[in-house]
């Protein structure tokens, strides 16, 4: 897992991914998606371990912001990780196309989070700190869940919709 000096190479195109689309106008700011996500992935209800974040201010006359990985067609996080490591932590899920961090392999360098083009920083790709080591995590479209992403199922107002790779535009 040592860091290696490799010649920059041209990044091979990766398979397109499915995506969770957000209509933030429909969002009811209930944050059920946050707890559903952390419950499914971490076994506890904890918004700070969630892969999706709802940011709202009830005093502000605007719709809430929902921060969630867009599973980029040109995934900077994935390219960074694969170009830095011989045995990278990030991989592409063959079924959904999700860009995923293998937490067992993650060294905690944080390059994926810093290259993520989506703002705000370190929200889309989060980390947890244990025993002096960071482990990064991000949305994996609930790849092992037959019913699809859990946040989509938990959302009461259908503000979240899952679009599989085949139906996704460019």
């Amino acid at each position, binding site marked *: 897992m040592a860091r290696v000096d490799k010649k920059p190479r041209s990044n091979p195109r990766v398979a397109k991914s499915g995506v969770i689309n957000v209509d933030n106008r429909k969002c009811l700011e209930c*944050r059920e998606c946050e707890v559903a996500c952390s419950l499914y992935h971490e076994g506890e*209800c904890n918004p700070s371990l969630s892969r999706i974040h709802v940011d709202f201010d009830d005093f502000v006359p*605007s719709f809430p912001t929902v921060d969630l990985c867009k599973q980029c067609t040109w995934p900077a996080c994935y390219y960074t990780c694969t170009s830095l490591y011989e045995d990278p932590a990030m991989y592409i899920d063959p079924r959904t196309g999700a860009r995923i961090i293998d937490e067992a392999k993650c060294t905690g360098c944080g390059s994926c989070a810093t290259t993520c083009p989506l703002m705000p920083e370190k929200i889309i790709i989060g980390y947890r700190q244990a025993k002096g080591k960071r482990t990064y995590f991000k949305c994996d479209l609930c790849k092992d869940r037959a019913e699809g992403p859990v946040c989509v199922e938990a959302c009461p107002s259908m503000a979240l919709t899952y679009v599989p790779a085949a139906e996704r535009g460019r």
Partner: protein
Amino acid sequence: MAEIYGWTGKILRVDLSKEKITTTNTMKYVPSLIGSLGISAMIAWEEIRPSVGPFDPDNRLMIMVGPLTGTLASGAGRVEVMGVAPQQHPPCFSRSGMGGHWGPELKYAGFDGVVIQGRSKKPVYVWIDDGEAEILDASEVWGTGTYSTTQTLRRIHGKKTRVISCGQAGENLSRIAIIQTETENAAGQGGFGGVMGSKNLKAIAVRGTGGVEIARPSEFLQLCLNQSRDGQRPPRPGSDTQWPSERTLYGPNFRRHKCGFCSTVCTNTIYMNVPGELVPALYTTEQMCYGYRTISHNAQTEVRVITSNYGINGWEVSSGIIPWLQLCKQHGLVSDIDGIDIPVPEKPIEYLRDCAPSPPEFLRTILRKIAFREGEIGDALSDGACYAADRLFESKGKPLLDHIYPRHGGQVEHWGGHWGPGGNVYWPWWLPPVLQWCMDTRDPASDSTHQWTEHVQRYLTQSGPDKGPFPLEKVRAVSEKVYGDPNVCDPSFDYDPPETKAIPAIWHTDRGMIVDSLILCDYENTRVFSMRSEDGAADTALMSKLFSSCTGIETSEEQLQKAGERISNLLRAIDIRNYGRGRKVDEKAIDVGFNYPGKDDGVVLDRKRFLKLIDKYYELRGWNKINGWPTRNKLEELGLKEIADGLEAIGRLG
């Protein structure tokens, strides 16, 4: 100590007099008392002496969350506030609840509740940050409204900070002051904002980044996802969903909003950039629940902002104080306030709907006078209409309260088939709620009566003008299954046999105690009917399943129901020991209130026959029929031996 699931295991205790912060172990109260309301009832029994008044430093202000708070269970965003309540007439230990995002944040910060006692020498607020708490100087926010307090504290502690605060009304010890969070969610009934003010406590700000550990995550996840989203009311004929259509889900000047962590069908609306009628400002605020009768939607929005900002109980003002003032004017007791005429309708007021709409100037004046206790009338109205009637107009306004208040409790009648606010409850469906009004320390709609009036009543094909989806046979079958008596949901039975009304009153009250302790929302729990199941019965064991899989403590529906009964009896015992509650007080609700037709159907409560319902209620509760006090047998059966001893020591054991 074994690992704890559901609860965080710590209750924060803040003594403002000694400026001391300690923690207590939650686990010495649970699982027998579940959480929140159950725990604070026990703390109240142990610590609040009969002589403690609402504004005394010895009063405990308990703001508690339960094992399910902050989880995926629908309605898990709520928080319950308990203490000796000043709005109650006379004051007694009571409760109030609110939604929003504050409760879960407290849980994520690592606490099952905050118990505040003492009185600070100078204005302070409490800042809780991930397991740490400190008392900070509040001179910067003292004297400001709840909106600016929240925003100032968010500027200081970060924008994700959740804040509860009292407004100017609370600082001035109004008995109808609320504890406010965000723009509209508030613990309204009870006047707990005034309790905060009496402790010189302006706000509690919380930030937490922890979580709630779940014992069996996958089972819990599935339970929550399967939780019905039907809504309490059955869907309208011809539609399979109750969700507002996409067209009504958002617009250029409004968005929909929910209390935190809830997936049920009810939504509130945040109106954005509404121009005011009084001040040409743009207002953004959430609206739900109560409403003023005024001239326009814009005026309504503006006045609600004023109400929430001052921290005043808008429910009490809009459907209690203003109608009472209008009645007083019709009887020639008063004509204007500060030169602004009190609006009155031409015909005598019988129902809330008869009241005249108030101009915004009038509302603004009355709210300001209440918040700052301005003048004699403002000072009196700041205590709510029940207390004001004792002082104003040589007490001649007192009989006029009878239409509006069942008196003990000091809160506006609603969901009891009488007076206007709330929905329509038809004869004889309003008998169990009236029975609950008799026994409770407050307006029981916060946790118990909604289940019956909003949900159960509406499933039958013929209950008032509302047409439900189920034929009588189906309703009777479900009723047999859930209550053990098919006649309970059959409207052809009224006073006889009495158990048809006493059973649901007890059943839903105990369920309400569970809802307040877990904490979930009473709009969501408990359901009796369901559109999804084949026999039409809802899964009444849902709460016990959620509780078991969340905490890992296997609890059956019966055991949880028993815990609800335990909490009901404990609250009753506090009421009996501290405030001399008994049958005489219970009957007061039907002595002065509920004694005129609540609807155009002309049905009046038959006092003599209603007393039989009260008899039956006591009998099924295991309480003494003569004085309404719990018996030793009952208390010991519920594991409350020390409570029985305590009541026996003062000679009030049934």
